[in-house]
């Protein structure tokens, strides 16, 4: 079913602004149906926590090569939906499709195996590990031969590949042996994004990825996001920064009270319309 998957990080030359991106192996031409299928599609997803109905039937499509910004007020259900897609929560009902095939994501690990990766609001890095160890945690490169069979790590290769992967998204490190604890909060977030971009094969989910970042580091993250989409990933980003989402996203999906009230192309959206949908569930006039 997933035979056309893109694999592992590959090197691509710098783009016009000097920022490299992670290149994925191209989607196989034989898998034409992917051009038409959504990478991820949710149909009528429902989720309750006790008496609280967090999701009341969510229909949404994440398409390959597109950035979808999921916006909505607090409590609209954005994070719950992301957690269902990434396997952190199980849905009560509704269907989830990956490339048109119905799947039940059992766990975060299952989602990883399907190529769906998430950057969390709270950082998912181990502060006492080096940058390279963090990037490869769970997917370590082992030495060849007997030493590899004994589980010995090829740290030289891990560091070299980390150097390349980070360079592609505009992060240069002088020392890859440095502990992640020594990085600033923003730098760690950039590393977390780099890690997700490196390993995601189908979709990249980001929950407020730039909340703790400065202007320039946010710009790097958005650049990374676009690079990931350009190379075949479906990117979903949850953000309260609607003006910026209107700039960087291809699609805007507005959630309110547990449902997606409208999905529109970003170029057709206005700030006022999105806010009206968020607050009242219906679009205002299109004058900004």
């Amino acid at each position, binding site marked *: 079913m997933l035979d056309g998957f893109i694999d592992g990080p590959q090197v691509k030359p710098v783009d016009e*602004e*000097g*920022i490299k991106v992670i290149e994925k192996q191209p989607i196989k031409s034989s898998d034409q149906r992917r051009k038409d299928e959504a990478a991820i599609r949710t149909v009528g997803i429902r989720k309750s926590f006790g008496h609280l109905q967090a999701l009341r039937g969510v229909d949404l499509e994440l398409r390959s090569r597109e950035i979808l910004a999921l916006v909505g007020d607090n409590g609209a259900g954005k994070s719950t939906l992301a957690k269902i897609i990434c396997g952190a929560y199980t849905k009560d009902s509704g269907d989830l499709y990956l490339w048109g095939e119905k799947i039940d994501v059992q766990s*975060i*690990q299952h989602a*990883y195996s399907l190529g769906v990766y*998430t950057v*969390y609001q*709270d*950082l*998912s*890095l*181990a*502060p*006492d*590990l080096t*940058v390279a*160890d*963090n990037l490869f*945690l*769970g*997917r*370590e490169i*082992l030495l060849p031969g007997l030493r590899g069979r*004994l*589980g*010995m*790590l090829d*740290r030289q290769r891990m560091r070299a590949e980390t150097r390349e992967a980070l*360079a592609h998204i*505009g*992060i*240069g*490190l*002088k*020392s890859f*042996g*440095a*502990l992640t*604890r*020594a*990085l600033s909060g923003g*730098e760690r977030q*950039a590393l977390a994004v780099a890690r997700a971009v490196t390993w995601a094969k189908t979709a990249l989910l980001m929950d407020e990825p730039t909340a703790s970042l400065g202007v*320039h*580091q946010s*710009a*790097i993250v*958005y*650049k990374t996001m*676009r690079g990931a989409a350009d190379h075949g990933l479906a990117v979903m980003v949850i953000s309260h920064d609607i003006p910026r989402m*209107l*700039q*960087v996203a291809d699609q805007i999906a507005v959630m309110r009270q547990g449902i997606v009230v409208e999905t529109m192309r970003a*170029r057709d959206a206005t700030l006022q319309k999105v806010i009206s949908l968020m607050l009242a569930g219906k679009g205002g006039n299109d004058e900004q």
Partner: protein
Amino acid sequence: MNNDPISQIQVSQKHVSSIEVRDESRALKVIKSTTFWILVVVVVMVVAFGVLTPNHVFFLPSTLLTVAFNGSQMMIVAVGMAYLLGAGELDLSVGTNIILSSTLAAKALKAFAGTPEQIMRGEYTHLTAGIIVGVLVAILSGSLFGLLNGLIVTRLRINSFIATLGTMMMYWGTALVLSQGAAEVGIPRALQTGFGHKKLLGIVPLPLLVAVAIGLILWVIIATTRFGLHTLAIGSSKESARRSGIDIDAHRLKLFILLGGLAGLAGLFDLVRFATTNPAGHQTDALLAITAAVLGGTSMWGGIAAIGGAMLGTLIPVILQTGLVIMEIGAFYQLIGTGILLIGAVYMDQRKRGRDAEA
């Protein structure tokens, strides 16, 4: 609205090298490590006692080897404890695990080595079989108790401090019930002559060699393997490790089994060195092992396990005790000295973490 919004985001080349982490030289890293400073403390203590002791007997290689030999049993437990602490857990039951494992091993050894009457007469008709069974029982029973600790922590979700505080009492109680509080007698002297008191080339005690070999193997594992990386990842951030696909419960279970097995092996050291068990001793072994590990640079908060440091940390109380005895000062002062060093080591660790967080 601009049709090419991404192009509006200016990420100039000057921001490409936005993360500038000081690239410390290897020498600087070594000097800043707690393990280095604990080595300095050990060397200073040896030199001080060497100068102060009558006839400078502390400088004699035989004295130093005896010190290391006396620390060998604790060394084995301390390196295992460093792993567990590195993964953010601890095991208070290792001391009573040693007592129970050695009691079971002694009973099994005797049961296989000959009849009770033969054992009483000091005759061992199946000595080799008895020793093999004894060694296996010590290590396997120790591992089993480690497994039980791990299951309580990972399945019942009980904090490892409480879980192993409970099993500490359970294991001790079981050992006392089995032994009626008495040390096992009738252990073949061949264990002492053939191993416990035997020296390689007549110089290095074999138990010390075993302890150092285990330390080296565990150091290689923590420093170079996936198992070691996962251990520290779990200690550093359980959530991060879980999200990376590491089965943290299975891994922690392995670590508890590892320390349990090492405690079983340490229990065997009682038999090979003293030809008896010590049901009244070992109650403070867990705390001493934690002390040794933390002194050596292992973090109480997980994420850092210093194996070489744990081995050096084991030596500090032994050096203090031996030196004070030779100088005819009360050996109890070693407790005060060790306590001060422990607090100092943790203080340094906290300061270092604080500095790193601010960097």
